[in-house]
C-alpha cells in the first residue's frame, strides 16, 4: 500500500493539487479531498471493463483487435496519404504530448486544433482585440472582496473552484473567508452557483452584450436612458456598477454562458473592456473558467511553438491561423479534411451534427482511455494511459500556472502514454526508426 500526497487531479482546469491517493496492488483504494468528478476519475482508472485495453483496427467494417505496431502502421498510412488531415483534441493530455502532436502536424502539413475551439475560442479572439487583465488564483484567494461569476456555474463545471480559490477560502487580506467577500452571479438560469450567491442577476438570454455595454457606460460616467437593459432594471445596473467600482479587488469569472451564446467573442471583448474601465477606479481582473484540465496547456505550447493559440493550418509548411477558416468545425463543415487524428477528446459527442456528418465519412484514428462515440466511428483505436494517474506530464491550470502531474500507478499492461504513441506515429510517418531515448518530460 502506498499513500501519495499532493497529487494533482487531472479533471478540470482547477487542477487541485492537494489530493491524497492510496494505491494498493496497482489499484486506487482511497481518494481524499477530490470533488465528485475527480474522485470518479481516479477510481475509474481501476475499472478495466470500461477502458480500452487493446489497439483496434477496422477490418471489413468492424473494429478488431490488432497489435500496437499494426495500429501505428495503419495510423501512419492514413495520415501520410491525407491531403488535409485534422489533428484534434489535446485538452486532456500533457503538454509533452502537445509538443509531439504539433511536430506531427507540421510534418504532415495538417490542421491542428484543440477543444478551445468549442469552449474559449471566442475568449482567445477577444484577447486578440482587447488584451487580458488577469491574475493567478491565489491573488483571488488573498485579496478579492467582490467575486462575480457570469455565465459560469462552477458548482457543476469546477466543483472545488469556490472552496479553494474564490468565495470560501481564508486569504491573507481576507482572514474571515466568505464573510469578507461578496458573490454575485449573472446568468440566464438560477444555477446552483446562483443559489449560494449574495446576489443573483437574471439576464435575458442573448442580451449579455447589451448589459455589459450598459454597465460600461455607467462605469465610464455616462447616463443610462433605458428603464431596463437585458431584463435588468436601470437601478440594478447602476448599483452593480457602483459596487464594482468600490470593490478593493474585484474579479469577474466567466464561462461558456458568455462564449457560446449570442455575441460569442464580442461578449468577452466587451467584458474585458469593462474590467479595463474598472481599473481606472479600482483593482479588477477577469478570468476564463477553462474546462479540461489542460486545455490551457495546449494554447500555451502552440503559442510558443507556432505563434497562435489554437486552430493552426500547417498546410504550406508554416502556421496560418484564422478562426472561422482554420477551426475544426469549419474545416469539417466545409468538407475539407480527408483524415482525422483525434486524441484525448470526443468530438462525436461534442461537435454539432453537421461536423460529424463529414467526420463519419473520413478515416479516423482515435487515441483515448475509454470507448466513446468517437472511438465507435474510428478506423484505428489506440488505448492510452491516463496522465496524472498512470503517467507524468505537465498541465496548465485555468490561470496558466503550470504544474507537473504525477504518476501514482501503472497503466494497464501494454498501454502506452499519448507521448509514446504519438512519437511512434511520427517516426513511422517520417519512415525513421524510433529514437532510442526513453520518454523524457519535455
Amino acid at each position, binding site marked *: 500500500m502506498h499513500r501519495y500526497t499532493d497529487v494533482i487531479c487531472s479533471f478540470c482546469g482547477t487542477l487541485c493539487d492537494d489530493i491524497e491517493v492510496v494505491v494498493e496492488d496497482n489499484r486506487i483504494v482511497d481518494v481524499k479531498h477530490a470533488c465528485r468528478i475527480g474522485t470518479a476519475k481516479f477510481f475509474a482508472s481501476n475499472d478495466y471493463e470500461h477502458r480500452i485495453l487493446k489497439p483496434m483496427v477496422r477490418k471489413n467494417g468492424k473494429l478488431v483487435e490488432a497489435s500496437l505496431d499494426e495500429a501505428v502502421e495503419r495510423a501512419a498510412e492514413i495520415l501520410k496519404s491525407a491531403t488535409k488531415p485534422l489533428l484534434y483534441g489535446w485538452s486532456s493530455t500533457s503538454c509533452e504530448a502537445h509538443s509531439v502532436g504539433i511536430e506531427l502536424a507540421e510534418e504532415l502539413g495538417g490542421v491542428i486544433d484543440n477543444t478551445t475551439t468549442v469552449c474559449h475560442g471566442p475568449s482567445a479572439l477577444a484577447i486578440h482585440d*482587447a*488584451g487580458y487583465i*488577469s*491574475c493567478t488564483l491565489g491573488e483571488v484567494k488573498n485579496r478579492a472582496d467582490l467575486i462575480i461569476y457570469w455565465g459560469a456555474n462552477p458548482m457543476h463545471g469546477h466543483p472545488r473552484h469556490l472552496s479553494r480559490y474564490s468565495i470560501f477560502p481564508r486569504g491573507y487580506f481576507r482572514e474571515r473567508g466568505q464573510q469578507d467577500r461578496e458573490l454575485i452571479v449573472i446568468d440566464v438560469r438560477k444555477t446552483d452557483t446562483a443559489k449560494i450567491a449574495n446576489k443573483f442577476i437574471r439576464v435575458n438570454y442573448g442580451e449579455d452584450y447589451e448589459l455589459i455595454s450598459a454597465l460600461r457606460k455607467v462605469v465610464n460616467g455616462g447616463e443610462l436612458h433605458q428603464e431596463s437593459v437585458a431584463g435588468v432594471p436601470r437601478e440594478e445596473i447602476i448599483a452593480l456598477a457602483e459596487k464594482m467600482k468600490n470593490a478593493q479587488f474585484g474579479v469577474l469569472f466567466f464561462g461558456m454562458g458568455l462564449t457560446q451564446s449570442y455575441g460569442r467573442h464580442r461578449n468577452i471583448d466587451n467584458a474585458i473592456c469593462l474590467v479595463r474601465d474598472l481599473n481606472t477606479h479600482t483593482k479588477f481582473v477577469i478570468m476564463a473558467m477553462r474546462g479540461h484540465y489542460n486545455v490551457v496547456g495546449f494554447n500555451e505550447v502552440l503559442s510558443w511553438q*507556432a505563434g497562435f493559440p489554437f486552430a493552426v493550418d500547417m498546410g504550406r509548411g508554416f502556421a496560418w491561423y484564422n478562426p472561422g477558416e482554420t477551426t475544426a468545425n469549419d474545416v469539417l463543415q466545409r468538407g475539407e479534411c480527408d483524415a482525422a487524428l483525434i486524441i484525448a477528446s470526443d468530438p462525436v459527442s461534442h461537435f454539432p451534427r453537421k461536423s460529424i456528418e463529414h467526420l463519419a465519412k473520413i478515416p479516423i484514428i482515435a487515441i483515448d482511455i475509454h470507448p466513446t462515440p468517437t472511438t465507435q466511428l474510428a478506423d484505428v483505436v489506440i488505448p492510452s494511459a491516463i496522465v496524472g494517474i498512470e503517467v507524468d506530464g505537465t498541465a496548465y491550470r485555468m490561470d496558466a500556472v503550470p504544474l507537473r502531474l504525477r504518476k501514482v500507478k501503472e497503466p494497464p499492461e501494454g498501454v502506452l502514454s499519448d507521448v509514446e504513441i504519438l512519437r511512434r506515429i511520427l517516426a513511422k510517418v517520417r519512415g525513421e526508426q524510433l529514437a532510442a531515448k526513453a520518454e523524457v518530460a*519535455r
Partner: protein
Amino acid sequence: MKLILKNGFVYDPLNGINGEKMDICIEDGKIVEDVKDAKVIDCSGKVVMPGGVEIHSHIAGGKVNVGRLMRPEDHIKNVMPKTRLTRAVNGYSTPSTFLTGYLYAKLGYTTAFTAAMPPLMARHTHEELHDIPMLDKGALTLMGNNWFVMRYLKRGDVELAAAFVAWLLKAAKGYAIKVVNPGGGEAWGWGRDVRSLDDPVPHFDITPREIISGLAKVNEMLSLPHSIHLHANNLGRVGNYVTTLETMEVPNGTKPARERQVVQLTHAQFHSYGGDSWRTFASEAESIAKAVNNNENVIIDIGQVVFGDTTTMTADGPMEYYLSSLTGLKWANKNIELETSPGVTPFVYSKRSPVSAVQWAVGLELALHIKDPFKVLLTTDHPNGAPFFKYPTIIAWLMSARYREETMKEVHGAAQKNTTLATIDREYDFYEIAVITRAGQAKSLGLAEKGHLGVGADADVAVYDLNPEEVDPSRDYKLIEEKFARTSYTIKGGEIVVKDGEIVKVVDGRTLYIDAKVDEGLERELMRDIDYYFKRFYSVNLANYPVQEVYLTNPTPVQIDASNVR
C-alpha cells in the same frame, strides 16, 4: 569536433586581444591551446569574436506567451516554413521559441538569459527555454516584490532572506536575483504603485530602498555570480532620472563578493528621462552617464529603442497599465500571487513622435557618454525597446556618427533639441563592440567560461565577414549592419551551427541555475516558515512548487557554497 579558426582578426577583450591576427583552436567543445587533425576554417579577412552573450531579453515564459496570445497580427510576420533542419517559425516582436534560437545564432549569439521569471511560473519559463535551440540559457528570477523577501528584510533577518533566496533560486532553477519596480509590484495588487524610494509598500511596511539594499546585501552574502539585476522604480516616467540617480546610491555600502558590480541597472534608457511633462520630455542621459562613470558599484544595460512596432512586456504591472492608458491599445495584466505583477501592451515607436525620438537618442547617449564599455551592455530589453535582431542597427549607430546623423534627419526634431546626441562624435570600434555584446555581459554574469576565447573557455565563437583593415565602420555603416546580422560562422560548443547566415545544425544548449548551499539549521528554520505560508496563501502546495530538473535542457547547476550564511 576539432576546429581551427585560422587567421582571423580576433577581438577578445577579456584577454586583451584587440584585432590581432591569430588562430583559435577548438576541441571537445572548448578552446584549446593546440589541436591536431582538425577541420580548418579560413577566417582571413574576417572578424572573430567570442559568441555573443545576451544578458537581458524577454524570450521565454508566461508574459512572452501572453504577448504571442494577444498578438496574432505579430505572427503573420517573419513567417518561414519548416525545412529539413528547422521548424516552422513566425513572429516579429514575440518570435516563436524556435525562431528566437535561430535568430540569435545568426547574430552570432550563443548564450541568452531571459529577463524576468516569476518563480510560480518558472516551469513555464523552462518549458519555453527548452524549446529555444542553439543557446545556453538561464533565467533572472523575480524577487523584488516577493512576500517572503519583504517580510524577512523588514524584520532585519538578512540571513533568513539569504536562505530564502538560495532556496528560491534552486526551486525555480533560476540564475540571479531580479528586482523589478521594488514594492510597486505588490502595490499593484491593489491597483497602486510606489513612486519613490521611500514610498512604503502597502501592508508590508517596507520601502523600495530597503528592498534594494537588502537584496544587494543578500546577493553578496551568497556570493552569487551575477549582481542584483535591478529594474528601478518609475520606469518610463517623465523626470524619472532623479529616482534613478538616488537608486544608484542605495547599495553603495555593500561590497561586491566577486570581481563585478553590486548592481546592474537594467534598461537604463527607460530611466534617464528629464522634463516635467510629456511636452517638456527630455534626455537626462548625461547625468546618468556621469553618475555611472563615478560609481564603481553600478553598471547598466542600455535598453535601446529602434523605431517600429513592438510589444512591451515587463513585470512592472503598473507601468504597463500606465502605458496602455496613454496609447489606448490592448493591455494584458497578470498579478502573480505573493510574487510579482507583469503586464503586456503593444507599442509603436514612431519617428514622427517627439517622445520616441528622444527615447531613441537617450540609449545611444548613454552608450557614448559612459567611458568604460564594461559598464555599458548592449540590450534593447527585447522586445521593449525593439526586437533583439535589431542589434546590428544599434551596433552600426554606435560605430558611425554619420549614421546617427542620417537617422537624426529622419526623426522628430526633439532628438536634436532635447538630447545631446548630435554633439557626440565618439565612435565605437570592434573591440568596444565585443565588450558590450559579449565580454562585458559574461563578466557581469560571472560566466568564467564565456565571453572570451582564452584556453578553457567554451568554444562559442562568432565569425563576421568584415575586414577591419578594409572596412571603415564610420562610412560603411550599412555594411556593418548587414554583416553583424548574419555571421559567416557561428560555433556553439565546438560545432558549426551557422554558416553564411544559414542554420546548418540545430543544437540544444545548456540551462544554468544556481545551487547554493546554506547552513542546514537555517534552512530547516526557513522551511518551517515557508510551509506555513504556502498552506495558507499560495494556491499550490509546497511540494508542487519547485521545478524538476527534467524541464531543463542539459541542466547545469552552478554550485555555490554559502554554508557560512547562518
